[in-house]
């Protein structure tokens, strides 16, 4: 091939500017997840490369670049270990892209870095596919693609040139139809070829497998979505919406923990059940944990999950992607499906000795006054309802004998405190009891029920001999509103913080509706939904033939579309002021009755015009001379007087032509 001078392939500072911008925008959303030294590396590399670009100094010596790279890799391996997992892969990819800037001296390197940036952006979507990221997607693609444009077409002028950006934006927009159609019709895989989609997690959120003081109160201020539920029939009353999550068995005086055994529960749906069964679909936001939430009491386990003996729904892998499942539930006062062994009863009655002596004493006293466990429960609930107990989001912090302090001193708290105190009291009376955590209620948002993290709740379950588990929600005794109308009713009454008002909450709910639709149509678009779309356009199955026909058609259609767009957006010639004034001059005579072709040269046209109206010979001559001088002599100050002088002559000719008409 050609021997080409290397200097042509060196980068201008404008190109460097865009390359740096591309790398920054692609790495930026990863920063919170990347090691702490990463931002320092990024800023350092960018500054150093920028300085060499504007000062036209030599790039850093190869040895130093290699040293920096080695140090970065050793640091990554030292702190994150040497495994091929996602965190390390992404860190290495990001570090590689950033460090490549240092030795980006030719266009070749530049093209490589910029193309790599697209891949870095892709890795961001493996962490989350939230609606807001769409904006990021388009913005970053615009910037990176514009960098490709600048690498190709560099006028070395303004770094940010509106005209150039417009060109890139236009081409990007022209590429959209193919993107949309391919998105809809490009065949999807039913299941991954390798790895698991749950490989990509985002840390644990929401309700966890233990409850210690304060763990739920954190969630109260979090209005983000926990899950959405769409009911087949009518939506049950708010007071029936107990979304069952982790069941807590063991209490060590401070923290409640789940039962770690993995006994599963076999349930059967009998004919009697069918009437009272409630069916609904849940869209669970990623939690990073294994719990599914379903209404009390859960009848069957959705696909890919198990219903544990204590009615807890557990998945095999951590839920790191949006998860959809259909659940079946049944409202019952008592749930007797669970088989409990003597050891289980012992665990369910266990209290750490020497903790909360006052509570134990009180219960011993009350136990003598009642005849049945149910009466005891009622007595405790009445106590909560009458004896100066308050519902509060920010109760005083409890230490040591927490239940004693709560019952006899502070007397204010929320579900966590009441459920905990109640369960401890039950156990003190020798009645098996445990805590269930989950969500309570939800807001009806358009056609689905929106359950936020702030709907997190904890309640108690008591084992009644010969009947089964009975759900007792002590919080409802203190604050009936919480259970009847949901946590939002309480929040409306007393704001959690200064930002908390109905307007911002409404906005949040509106946004969730959009997100719900986004999840439904884009994020969760899959092989099944694609099949339905293929069916709509007349293909009963998504086979090779159908795919080839459809994709071929798409390419054909988009080709036509692109050609059409390119045609209407073709770079047109701007009509120069000279052309305009020349046209005006010619029109003057043509309208007056001169027969001549409009695209005649100005000189020939003037000749004809003079023959046509000899009395304006002088003016025509004047116009032609001035026009030619202005247009073709480079020296004159062109723009300033152009219109004025030529226009004046035109007006003069106009008058002359008019007087000619009068004379005749």
């Amino acid at each position: 091939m050609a021997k080409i001078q290397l200097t042509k392939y060196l980068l201008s500072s404008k190109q460097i500017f865009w390359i740096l911008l591309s790398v920054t925008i692609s790495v930026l959303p990863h920063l919170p997840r990347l090691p702490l030294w990463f931002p320092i590396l990024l800023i350092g590399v960018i500054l150093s490369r920028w300085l060499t670009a504007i000062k036209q100094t030599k790039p850093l010596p190869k040895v130093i670049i290699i040293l920096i790279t080695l140090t970065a890799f050793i640091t990554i391996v030292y702190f994150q270990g040497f495994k091929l997992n996602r965190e390390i892969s992404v860190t290495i990819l990001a570090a590689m892209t950033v460090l490549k800037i240092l030795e980006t001296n030719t266009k070749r390197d530049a093209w490589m870095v910029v193309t790599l940036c697209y891949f870095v952006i892709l890795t961001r979507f493996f962490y989350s596919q939230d609606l807001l990221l769409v904006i990021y997607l388009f913005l970053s693609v615009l910037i990176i693609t514009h960098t490709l444009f600048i690498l190709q077409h560099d006028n070395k002028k303004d770094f940010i040139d509106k005209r150039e950006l417009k060109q890139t934006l236009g081409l990007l927009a022209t590429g959209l139809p193919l993107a949309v159609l391919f998105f809809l019709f490009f065949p999807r895989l039913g299941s991954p070829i390798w790895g698991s989609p749950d490989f990509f997690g985002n840390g644990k959120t929401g309700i966890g497998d233990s409850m210690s003081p304060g763990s739920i109160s954190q969630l109260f201020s979090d209005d983000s979505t926990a899950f959405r539920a769409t009911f087949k029939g009518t939506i049950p009353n708010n007071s029936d919406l107990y979304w069952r999550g982790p069941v807590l068995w063991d209490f060590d005086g401070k923290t409640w923990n789940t039962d770690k055994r993995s006994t599963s529960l076999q349930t059967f749906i009998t004919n009697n059940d069918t009437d009272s069964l409630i069916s609904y679909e849940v869209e669970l936001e990623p939690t990073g944990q294994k719990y599914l939430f379903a209404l009390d009491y859960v009848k069957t386990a959705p696909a890919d999950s198990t219903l544990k003996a204590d009615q807890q729904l557990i998945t095999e892998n951590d839920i790191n992607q949006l998860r959809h499942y259909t659940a079946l539930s049944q409202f019952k006062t008592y749930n007797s499906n669970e088989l409990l062994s003597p050891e289980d009863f012992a665990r369910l009655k266990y209290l750490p000795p020497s903790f909360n002596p006052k509570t134990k004493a009180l219960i011993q006293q009350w136990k003598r006054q009642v005849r049945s466990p149910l009466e005891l429960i009622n007595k405790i609930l009445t106590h909560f309802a009458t004896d100066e107990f308050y519902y509060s989001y920010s109760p005083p912090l409890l230490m040591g004998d927490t239940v004693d302090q709560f019952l006899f001193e502070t007397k204010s708290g929320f579900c966590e405190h009441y459920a905990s105190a109640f369960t401890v009291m039950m156990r003190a009376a020798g009645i098996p009891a445990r805590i269930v955590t989950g969500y309570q209620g939800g807001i009806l948002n358009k056609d689905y029920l929106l359950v936020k993290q702030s709907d997190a709740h904890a309640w108690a379950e008591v084992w009644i001999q010969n009947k089964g588990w009975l759900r007792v929600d002590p919080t409802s005794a203190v604050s009936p509103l919480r259970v009847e109308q949901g946590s939002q009713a309480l929040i409306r009454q007393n704001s959690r913080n200064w930002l908390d008002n109905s307007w911002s909450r409404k906005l949040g709910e509106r946004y969730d509706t959009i997100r719900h639709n986004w999840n439904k149509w884009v994020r969760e678009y899959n092989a099944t939904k694609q099949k339905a779309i293929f069916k709509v356009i007349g293909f009963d199955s998504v086979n090779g033939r159908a795919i080839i026909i459809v994709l071929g058609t798409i390419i054909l259609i988009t080709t036509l579309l692109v050609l059409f767009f390119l045609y209407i957006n073709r770079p047109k010639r701007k009509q120069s002021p000279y052309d305009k004034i020349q046209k005006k001059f010619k029109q003057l005579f043509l309208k007056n009755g001169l027969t001549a072709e409009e695209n005649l040269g100005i000189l020939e046209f003037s000749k004809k015009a003079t023959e046509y109206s000899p009395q304006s010979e002088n003016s025509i001559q004047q116009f032609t001379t001035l026009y030619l001088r202005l247009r073709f002599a480079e020296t004159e100050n062109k723009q300033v007087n152009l219109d004025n002088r030529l226009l004046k002559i035109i007006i003069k000719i106009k008058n002359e032509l008019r007087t000619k008409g009068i004379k005749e």
Partner: protein
Amino acid sequence: MKPASLKNKIGKRLFPNLMLHKKAESLPLSINWRRVFILPTKPGLFFGFICLLMLIASLNFNNNMGLMLTFLLVGIAQVALYRVFFNLTSLIIKGVTTQPVFAGDEAQFTLHIKAITTKYDICVQTNHTHNCLLEIPADETKPLPFSQLTTKRGWLEGGKIKLKTSYPFGLFYAWIWTRIDTKCLVYPKPENTPPPLPKNEFNEGNKKIVKKGEDFHGLKAYQPGDSIRLIAWKRTAQTGELISREYQQTLGDKLLLDYAQVRLPNQEDKLSRLTAWVMSAYQQQLDYCLKLPGFTSGYDCSSQHHLSCLKALALYGENNG
């Protein structure tokens, strides 16, 4: 039939428009879409590779945002493919200008390219040049130079050139081949260290250059044709013969550069030496005459004369000269 000509024949049959570069075309030449080639560039191939990786990763994890990004890139590539094509078609090569050069130097040709709609990044490529125009505004004509190496004197055709563009993203490049038959005149390569200009060694070159000038030089016998005003009457009266004054502007020899007199075995070497002499004679503003078999220039020192001598040297022995 030779394989090469067979190949040409098949090529002509199948791709009549693609084989156009085989023979030179008349100008102005409008670039027809049927002769445009398009292929991905190296960055384009890398872009495609990254897209493929992204597609596989997104499909595997059914990551719809990833697929959206990937397909957006595919869409961009599709647009770039058509855009690059339209950036080359409908260009018009209005003409080619050129300047004579000496053999061994680069022959400079200048394409004058007109754009109907605005075009960007139009490049011309030959074996050893690669020049680009950043922008050709609509309805304007811009010069785009390219050069060819010269090895021998005579006429040099512009030859096979590639007109190409990678606008807008450098992912694809479109190009056409064409042959420019505009010829550049190539003078013989002047001898590097030529011997000094020949002086009195030739008979005919022995004559003194006599020219009317301001400086009085001497007296001589009147010759018919001398101006009456030049007659030195005093002297004439003394001698009884007509004596006229002689004025000279330059003193020097009338220089004859004769091909036959150059003592070198090789024709090209002779021409090289003569070229070097013509050059130096012109620089010194001497009156010289170049004599080649079948060509005699006459004595002069004008630049026109100079160029015609060089041209004669360049085309010596060529039929079309």
